[in-house]
């Protein structure tokens, strides 16, 4: 059985469908990239997988011993966080909130886990710094470390590299790839960068008006849809460099 199985999903807001008849599955150890244009419904799909909103039709099943809430999430940033007085440590530790159960306070084990997450993301020296004073790349690492406290199995990342410069973007991709390949964390990631998605991911889900694709990254590169989008991405890059 797969980790996540989505069957015949229809997503939308207030009776208005934006995505219809979507079926795909994620197996343990996969690295799935969700690509598509702005407004195609990528974030909506992820929020539905997280149980933050209900699908209009269809079902999402969690299997393979994964409890529904046993996952980590990195959201597209919200406005409130920008002037929030909180240290890196406080935020990363809050990733352990699902381990609290009925206890009011974090245990030593929770703290050790947060400590390990900080180190894995290479932000241990920043622990006392205020979140709002960090650079965009550092902030993303903090949120990723928090997500890692919540799970060892499944990460859902909504545009983890948006707004980062090319060098930091590459570092972020390396980090995520290492989590997937070395630590066996299943990754579902939304990205605008089709070329990077095809390079790092094992599977691609392409959604949007011009057609839907779900399959391995290799199959995506061969498919007409994938070839068109990869060519577009190359063209854009060439244009920017010229």
């Amino acid at each position, binding site marked *: 059985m797969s980790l996540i199985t989505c069957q015949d999903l229809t997503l939308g807001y207030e009776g208005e469908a934006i995505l219809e008849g979507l079926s795909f599955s994620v197996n343990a150890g996969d690295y799935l990239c969700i690509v598509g244009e702005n407004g195609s419904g990528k974030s909506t799909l992820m*929020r539905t997988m*997280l*149980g*933050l909103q209900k699908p209009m039709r269809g079902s999402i099943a969690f299997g393979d011993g994964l409890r*529904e*809430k046993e*996952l*980590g*999430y990195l*959201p597209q940033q*919200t406005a*409130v*966080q920008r*002037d*929030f*007085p*909180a*240290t890196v440590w*406080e*935020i990363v530790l*809050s*990733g352990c*909130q*699902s381990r*609290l159960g009925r206890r*009011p*306070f*974090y245990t030593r084990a929770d703290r050790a886990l947060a400590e390990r997450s900080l180190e894995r993301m290479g932000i241990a020296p920043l622990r*006392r*710094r*205020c979140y709002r*004073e960090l650079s965009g790349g550092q902030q993303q690492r903090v949120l990723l470390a*928090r997500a890692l406290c*919540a799970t060892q199995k499944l990460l*859902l990342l909504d545009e983890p590299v948006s707004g980062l410069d090319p060098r930091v973007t590459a570092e972020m991709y390396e980090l995520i790839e290492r989590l997937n390949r070395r630590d066996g964390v299943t990754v579902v990631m939304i990205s605008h960068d089709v070329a990077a998605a095809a390079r790092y991911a094992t599977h691609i889900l392409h959604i949007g008006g011009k057609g839907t694709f779900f399959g391995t990254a290799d199959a995506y590169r061969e498919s007409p849809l994938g070839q068109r989008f990869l060519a577009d991405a190359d063209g854009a890059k060439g244009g920017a460099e010229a």
Partner: protein
Amino acid sequence: MIATLQQYLSFPFVRYALIVGVLIALCSSLLGVTLVLKRFSFIGDGLSHVAFGAMAIAAVLRLSNSLLFVMPVTVLCAVLLLRAGKRAKLKGDAAIAMLSVGAMAVGYLLLNLFSTSTNVSGDVCSTLFGSTSILTLTRAEVWLCAGLSVAVVALFALFYNRIFAVTFDEDFGRAVGTRVEACNLLIAVVTAVIIVLAMNLVGSLLISALIIFPALSAMRLFRSFLGVTLCSAAVSVACALAGMLVSIVGGTPVGATIVAVNIVAYFLFALVARLK
């Protein structure tokens, strides 16, 4: 001046007032950070108006212990406002404005129509601005206030980690299975309790200042959630104590004096932050 103060402090009701005032100030500062950051200040504002309306009804009904009536009504409205606030994102917060201003108008109307007191505007003024009501608390009310304050502080300590999580990122909390709605409800109910308590100290118009000023001051200087929380508690207690002592010696209105001290504290913090 010290002599005057000593003379006043020898009265038990003044000592009660100081103790209750400090406890209330402590409570009211705790949720300030959360209310500011969650854009929940509308609940605080709306509730203080509702509490005024409830107080007016209690006065008209000549209830001996108005707290027992005002508290449940305000808590109930907190729950309703939280529900309305969720939908308000679509319709604007007209509903909230209506409820709070309506409660205020009806309260004033009732007081004018039915009050047996000869000094209606004086009564209204003291409900709005607090004036001397803290000095007239009965022993039972003092114990009730003290008990509720301790309960609020204890609840806050027990739920501190969850309140932080829900304030920082609701969606993440929901995704990993934290009961976010329950936490929001707790925050709204505790806010209602705080507002009713604080009404005794500063009156319903000035409550928001008591809740929000210490948090804003602390946020100028501190960068961690824990630091801001502890600092705003300390600032709030210090300002309330200073304000009450000044008002006792100088004969100024308690609520307004406390808020004025808070304003001074805010500018001091802003200045220190600038110099750092």
